[in-house]
């Protein structure tokens, strides 16, 4: 369970402080698929990074499974992310000098797994097969299509089997067809039990989410059930 209580975040700006989040109250249950929609600059990415422990709120608390996220040290939050959170970005952010297999296996060295769990490269290979990228293992990101890059990024997000998947405009750089396949992929992960928080300005994501939140000027304006 993720709980945000009166979370606000201000950034310094040239013409005074900019309020990115303004008194956000939010609860996300385990296994939920929540879409946060809003126009550019509404605070969607800030909300997502706050949930990941990467942006310390100016006010309010973020609690994950009854544990205050920002009471942890920087190192503790890094460990929290490595063990619990998978990230998918609009710009994919694959490491350009690693091939597909190495990119997906990259977070593997952050989490210690039991002897019964296959090593990171083995798990990465399995994930890439699952996403239809088994022929692209040795390719660099520059040699992939945008859809393949996003699927690689999703595979990387899943490597350490996180329960929470955070997706920042995952279809923002994709054409309609590829975007739809990525959303299908996220839906499938949700059905498999992952908690997904997705931010987007694309209304097309609503159909996949269990709940849609509207964010405007840093404030949640409403929470409506969706079709997912």
């Amino acid at each position, binding site marked *: 369970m993720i709980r945000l209580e009166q979370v606000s975040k201000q950034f310094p700006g040239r013409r005074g402080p900019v309020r990115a989040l303004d008194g956000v109250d939010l609860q996300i249950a385990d296994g939920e698929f929540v879409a946060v929609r809003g126009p550019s600059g509404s605070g969607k990415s800030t909300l997502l990074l706050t949930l990941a422990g990467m942006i310390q709120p100016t006010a309010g608390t973020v609690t994950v499974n009854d544990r205050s996220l920002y009471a942890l040290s920087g*190192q503790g939050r*890094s*460990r929290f992310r490595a063990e619990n959170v998978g990230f998918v970005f609009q*710009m994919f952010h694959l490491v*350009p000098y690693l091939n597909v297999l*190495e990119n997906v296996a*990259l977070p593997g060295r952050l*989490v210690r797994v039991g002897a019964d769990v296959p090593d990171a490269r083995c798990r990465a290979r399995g994930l890439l097969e699952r996403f239809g990228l088994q022929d692209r293992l040795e390719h660099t990101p520059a040699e992939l299509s945008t859809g393949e890059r996003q699927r690689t990024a999703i595979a990387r997000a899943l490597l350490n089997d996180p329960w929470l998947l955070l997706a920042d405009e995952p279809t923002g750089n994709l054409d309609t067809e590829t975007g739809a396949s990525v959303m299908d992929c996220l839906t499938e992960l949700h059905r498999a039990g992952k908690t997904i928080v997705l931010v987007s300005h694309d209304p097309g994501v609503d159909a996949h989410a269990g709940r849609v939140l509207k964010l405007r000027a840093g404030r949640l304006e409403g929470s409506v059930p969706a079709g997912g």
Partner: protein
Amino acid sequence: MSPWLLMLREMRLRWLNFALALLAVAGAAALVVALAGMGRAANVETKRLMRNLGFNLLVLPGQADLAQYWATDTVKGDMPQSYVQKLAQTRGIGADHYVATLQQRLSWRGLQVVLTGILPERNAVDAGDKAPMGYSVGPGECFIGYAIAKALGLKEGQEIEIAGVRLKIARCMVEDASKEDVRIYTHLMDAQRILKLPNRINTIQALGCLCKGGELEILRGRIAKVLPDTYVTQLQNIATARMQTRHMVEQNAGVVVSVVVLTAALWVALLAWLNVRERRQEIGVMRALGFGSCHVAVMFLGRAVLIGAVGALLGFAVGTWLAGQYGADIFKLTFAKVKPAMDLLPRTVFGAVLITALASLLPAMIAVTQDPARTLTEE
């Protein structure tokens, strides 16, 4: 995937940045190693060149008439030969080599000549095992000045007789256009026999005064304590020339090395900063994936260490090659002293690694402290 493999992959992608940093480190290391490799030869060469200027310190009998000495190169009065031994065995004088001489002007075969008997050099007890600097004439031998040899048609290997003492000409000296041309060098014992002054000398030449606090008054004070009935004077021009030459060589090398190392460090720092700038989003992603600040620091400092170590090894090889290749041309007298300074290898690697790590420290700190959230939300 190990951090080192990550670094290698990154450097392969951004090879130009890596190559430019490596070039700077290797260049600086090569210069240091080449200078050090040639340094020994440079030291010996400087000493040899300076030796030609002669000794710079004179110890004369107490009653010596300096005006006569400068006019005739000989001195009235004499002192015991044991003085040179006494001086050499006293610590803390501030001079290295001592040469006892007995010299007098005399008329020989119709020529006015200066007979100079010299005893092989003695090193001061605290000067270590330094190579002799001046002439060494064996017993029964002599060196003949150019003007005498020319006037009398003397050749090397001939025998001559002075005041009943027979001597073999070991060397006819080249023209010097100085009093050297009318000088006959013999072993001290032979000169003592010719002049009938057994166990007596009238000059002790010394080389010293290079140490700080080696000024004439201090030296006089030190020597006066050991040999109270002598007079000490210094050939100021020679002393100054020696000191200035040596300091100039040391300072020039020091300035060149400092400037090159500093420039290389700034260059490495600039390239590291550009690397951090270029990798802002990568750093953001790493942080989002859960890599801590230590991982990020290791990524950049490890890169610096790798550049430093590889650059130092490369520079050592190039510097050693340069010293061997050009050392012989530069140091014609002492090229045999130009040798690979293997003892410098660990110091070169350690120094280069330390300097590149320090130069990359600020960029690495920028990488660690940059806000990953900001770079990840940038379009």
